[in-house]
């Protein structure tokens, strides 16, 4: 049963040093506020799982929280490379996280298999691809009906997943809509699930087949308006594309990165997110 907590408490009670943790959101609904809270609380030795690491993991990697990365596309979408991730991988600053790299198809299937309680995902993938040679977690099975060799990857079962969503009702049922990505799979694949939402409402009043996570699949819910910024929340505020472009300059240099993190994360609070999206809110 979901409990309603402050973001600080939700993170403190559900994330621990050494955890395998997914902060998911496929471009949309990236849980930046939860990640910033995790940064403030200073966790270490995390295995960070995320299809598209982008800014949120660039920041955690730059702060030295990552022991290992499991991912499928480590870029700033439409902008370029992730400079903190590069600095860690190429120069070991601030440390050298282990890397387990997959394709999107494999990661998506691996989350799906995790949600489905299976130990592996099977896909027609990685044919002729170099990742199969450098990642020992890319294996294969033989179809017992056709003899076809298919790729197999281990399912993803995080200790805890963090996602952002539009809203929860008072019981704790959560609505995700728009680009739903792998929000549902990330929650159902994890031992514990923490959801930040824009608001609590009396009634989700949505379509019968909308993506709704029942309250009993969620561990904790924290209300953080603007909590996805600079990602976005469909129906609430737009993506802050300018901030994604700006990040390329901030992350280019260790000092500018460190200064930015101090000012915008370490000395900030979850409440600051609401102000950051003020100009991005659309007329509902």
């Amino acid at each position, binding site marked *: 049963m979901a409990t309603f907590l402050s973001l600080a408490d939700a993170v403190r009670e559900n994330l621990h040093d050494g955890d395998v943790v997914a902060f998911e959101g496929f471009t949309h609904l990236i849980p930046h506020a939860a990640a910033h809270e995790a940064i403030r609380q200073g966790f270490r030795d995390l295995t960070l799982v995320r299809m598209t690491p982008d800014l949120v993991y660039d920041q955690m990697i730059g702060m030295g929280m990552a022991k290992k990365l499991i991912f499928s596309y480590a870029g700033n979408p439409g902008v370029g490379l992730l400079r903190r991730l590069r600095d860690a991988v190429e120069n070991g600053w601030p440390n050298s996280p282990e890397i387990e790299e997959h394709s999107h198809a494999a990661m998506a*299937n691996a989350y799906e298999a995790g949600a489905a309680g299976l130990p592996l995902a099977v896909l027609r993938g990685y044919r002729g691809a170099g990742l199969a040679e450098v990642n020992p977690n890319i294996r294969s099975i033989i179809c017992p009906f056709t003899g076809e060799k298919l790729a197999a990857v281990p399912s993803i079962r995080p200790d805890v997943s963090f996602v952002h969503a539009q809203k929860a009702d008072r019981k704790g049922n959560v609505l995700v809509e728009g680009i739903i990505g792998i929000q549902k799979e990330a929650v159902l694949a994890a031992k514990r699930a923490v959801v930040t939402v824009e608001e609590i409402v009396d009634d989700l009043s949505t379509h019968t087949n909308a993506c709704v996570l029942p309250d009993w699949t969620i561990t904790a819910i924290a209300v953080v308006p603007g909590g996805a910024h600079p990602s976005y929340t469909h129906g609430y505020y737009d993506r802050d594309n300018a901030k994604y472009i700006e990040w390329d300059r901030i992350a280019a240099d260790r000092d500018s990165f460190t200064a930015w993190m101090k000012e915008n994360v370490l000395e900030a609070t979850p409440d600051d997110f609401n102000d950051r999206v003020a100009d991005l809110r659309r007329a509902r």
Partner: protein
Amino acid sequence: MTAAAFTPDEMMTIAASRALSSSDVCFVGIGAPSAACNVARLTHAPDITLIYESGTIGTAPDVLPLSIGDGELCDTAVTTVSVPEMFRYWLQGGRITIGFLGAAQLDRFGNINTTVIGDYHNPSTRLPGGGGAPEIATSCGEIYITCKQSKRALVEKIDFFTSFGHGEGGDHRERLGITTRGPTLLITDLAIWKPDPVTKEFTVVSLHPGVTRENVQETCGWTVRFADSLEETPAPTALEIGTLRDLKARTAAAHSGK
């Protein structure tokens, strides 16, 4: 329609857009492919189906998305599905006719590297990696590649096989049990290339207006083959260039942060 002044980048995008038709179902990447697909949709291929890997199917954005998951894509889509469904039912299910790929490094057989420069375990440059590319390259009916020419990009040997094109050429795909056609078109800022029917080596079939064979060879890391009957790519029409520039202007305004 009269020809207009244009940049090599614009020519690349417009040449790519011309290769698309209303009956195509395209898996669209960000950058030139996204621009090309939307120019096609806004000009000669109004019924083209555009799919972005974020799950948006049949989308018709008014501005180009910065990421593959901008809200605009969802707002204008016929439907938006989960990412696992996108990769299972739509890509792996064989529903995509054309997949677009870009490249940091590309070889003459359409093999692509966007993963690392240098050794995988100790790279000199860590690039973003494959994302959807490894399966796009083998699950789509055929692959169109867009790439700006340079000796750093068009190389004799790529550092990492992010996605498989024609491998060593010839029937290498068939030998791996891959039934899709793979790269059938390479559109650069200088030329249009198609694979040789037998060797599968990319061969220049059309030079963009004003481009010489030497221009192409100087910006390519392997010895370029040219088709016997080399054509000249028609210059962008006023409609094409106008559509592309309007789209880019709307996009720049939308992404500047208001």
